[in-house]
């Protein structure tokens, strides 16, 4: 994860000014929302599956130490190696040392958010390993030296024309290769196939680790996840410590809702279960399997009131549901984890200091909680973070000062009435057709993007008093 860029507001303003970006993100998220709803409607008792999935995640996270022990012993019993990485640096050092000691020269990667989080690619390259992203979207991101802007659809912010230009400039594509999306896809297949066949290191993420069996579940649609875990002689699987389920049967519960919530698919095309390195009597598969369990701040989150965010299964539904994400896209959040869950997870993992704007990037409408397959109460945690932020005095001085003045006025009925009358008069004097177009700073924060309605001249109390003097009306 790179450091938080200077200003969330600056990035948001840029994103809002980019009509093409807003159009693209708005269109795609709307279409995925419809597919998700249709896929859940097709599943009998979808709500009950979700409730059960939530219970499983809650139970697993609350007993994570025990399930990590189980997972570790099961993987080791099958001949896999398990490394516990307390920090990003520990994880990076383990993988680069492994590459060095095994003389690994080329790595093919399938999509892994945790390796984005710890910026593994750059560090592997620095250690002399060529890294090739193989998920189509991630390949484009790598060619463009860009960052993913959605956890499931990494290039939701790019047009087909931009991808075509990149393929032409960076990968030698011809006009025929770029005729349409199908040709571009075939171009990527032809270009990446030799990389798979020659690579000696495969790096993948993990959707779920099954504690009782040591099984790693990796879900992909393109097939790159299978190639990465089958062809190279060494497979490194990177996972956050929280990505566990207790048993294979529990895994099937999560799979019932993951694909449906993420893309509206019943299941991803390849639901790939890995049980250790290749045994001697099997003909293909890696000869070494290394599982890197990354903490990198997660155990701190585990010990807090934000632990519920670790129930997350990274489906991306909350991004698609969020009216803020729909407008600003993923990059504005300045984190590999954008959108509602990211606005909790990023400050939780990396500290509120650098990311104190994120918990405010929400209208608290609750659409994320409704969309979440495991019903994570994101608004509750955003509020908790806002409270922490206020305690840390990140709120502007004038808010605290303003609230002090308001309290002084509001505790006294006479002061309150007088202040109300004065404000209403002032507003009427400066308004046009019932709206105020301009207010001085800091109130200009409101009027720079919308008008402010004026107060009624007669207050509620005055009206009430007037009404009670009128003769009683009889019901007709």
């Amino acid at each position, binding site marked *: 994860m790179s450091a938080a860029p200077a200003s969330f507001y600056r990035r948001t303003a840029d994103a809002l000014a980019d009509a093409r970006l807003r159009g693209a993100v708005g269109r795609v998220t709307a*279409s995925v929302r419809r597919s998700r709803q249709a896929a859940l409607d097709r599943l*009998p008792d979808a709500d009950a*599956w979700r409730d*059960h999935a939530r*219970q499983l995640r809650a*139970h697993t*996270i*609350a007993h994570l*130490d025990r399930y*990590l*022990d189980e997972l570790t012993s099961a993987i080791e019993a099958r001949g896999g190696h398990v490394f516990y990485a307390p920090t990003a640096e520990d994880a990076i050092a*383990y993988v680069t040392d492994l590459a060095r000691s095994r003389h690994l020269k080329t790595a093919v990667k399938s999509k892994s958010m945790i390796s984005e989080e710890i910026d593994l690619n750059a560090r592997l390259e620095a250690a002399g390993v060529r890294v090739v992203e193989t*998920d*189509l*979207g991630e390949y484009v991101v790598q060619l463009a030296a860009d960052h993913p802007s959605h956890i499931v*659809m990494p*290039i939701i912010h790019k*047009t*087909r024309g931009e*991808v075509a230009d990149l393929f032409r400039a960076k990968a030698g594509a011809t006009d025929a290769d770029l005729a349409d*999306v*199908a040709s571009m*896809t*075939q171009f990527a*297949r032809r270009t990446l*196939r030799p990389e*798979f*066949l020659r690579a000696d290191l495969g790096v993948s993420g993990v959707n779920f680790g099954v504690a009782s*069996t040591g*099984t790693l579940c990796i879900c992909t*649609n*393109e*097939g790159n996840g299978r190639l990465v*875990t*089958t*062809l190279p002689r060494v497979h490194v699987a990177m996972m956050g*410590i929280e990505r566990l389920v207790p048993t*294979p*049967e529990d*895994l*099937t*519960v999560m*799979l*019932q809702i993951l694909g449906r919530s993420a893309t509206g698919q*019943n*299941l991803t*095309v*390849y*639901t*790939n*279960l890995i*049980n250790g390195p290749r*045994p001697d009597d099997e*003909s*293909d*598969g890696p*000869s070494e399997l290394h599982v890197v369990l990354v903490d990198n701040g997660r155990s701190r989150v*585990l*010990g807090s009131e934000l632990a*519920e965010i670790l129930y997350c299964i990274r489906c991306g539904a909350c991004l698609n549901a969020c009216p803020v994400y729909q407008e600003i896209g993923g990059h504005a959040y300045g984190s590999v984890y954008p959108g509602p869950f990211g606005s909790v997870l990023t400050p939780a993992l990396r500290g509120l200091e650098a990311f104190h704007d994120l918990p405010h990037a929400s209208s608290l409408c609750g659409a994320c909680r409704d969309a979440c397959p495991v019903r994570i109460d994101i608004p509750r945690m955003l509020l908790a973070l806002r409270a922490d932020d206020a305690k840390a005095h990140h709120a502007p001085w004038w808010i605290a000062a303003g609230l002090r003045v308001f309290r002084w006025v509001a505790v006294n009925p006479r002061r309150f009435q007088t202040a109300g009358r004065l404000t209403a008069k002032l507003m009427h004097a400066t308004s046009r057709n019932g709206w105020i177009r301009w207010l001085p700073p800091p109130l200009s924060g409101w009027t720079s993007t919308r008008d402010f309605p004026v107060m009624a001249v007669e207050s509620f109390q005055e009206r009430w008093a007037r009404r009670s003097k009128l003769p009683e009306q009889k019901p007709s």
Partner: protein
Amino acid sequence: MTPDARAAMRAAIAAAIGRGTFPDAVADHPGAFSWSPLAAGDRAARFRAELEALGGTCHDMPEPNADAVVALLDRLMAGRGPRRVLVWDEALLPVAGLPTALVRAGISIDTVTPGDMDSIERREELASATIGRTGADAALAETGSIVLASGPGRARLASLLPPIHVALVERHRLVDSLAALIRVRPDLATAGANVVCITGPSRTADIEHTLSRGVHGPGEVHVVFVG
């Protein structure tokens, strides 16, 4: 990593659990989920509808017939590439006599053997097959999926490298869903170093959310129900 470092991280996790709040967490494992099964008669139709919706194809072969399988392979590979199939061990398939029928039709057969992974030339050769032909351990009606466990004679690459995948499945292996399968056969999840559940052809929608098939895996999937 020293055992101490692992123990330290584990201790930090255990201590954190003591401090955290876990809404809706129960002390004991929440147990199994119960769902209503599909009506048995609907399974075959459901499988076909789901697979076809994904762009896959479903075939019926009431009697095992090697020549019919070869005719299908012949038709599928016409104009698509070398007349070469990458196969699972014949003994594992529900149709007998396939190797002879393939040779008679002039189709060459390739198999992955232990040691093949050590040579790049050999990998490239394996990747040149036009069709991968496998069996399957189960088929899932609810999602139109097939489940393949790796093992001796059951290469993963056969369902992965070629542009076309043909799977021969005994009809009795058709069950309701992945959840139903794992409930009755929990052992299947760990039956090989790799178990894959394949739901339709390889696909992507990364570019402008436009669907296209056959990115890295097979763009065509044919499931042949035998029996």
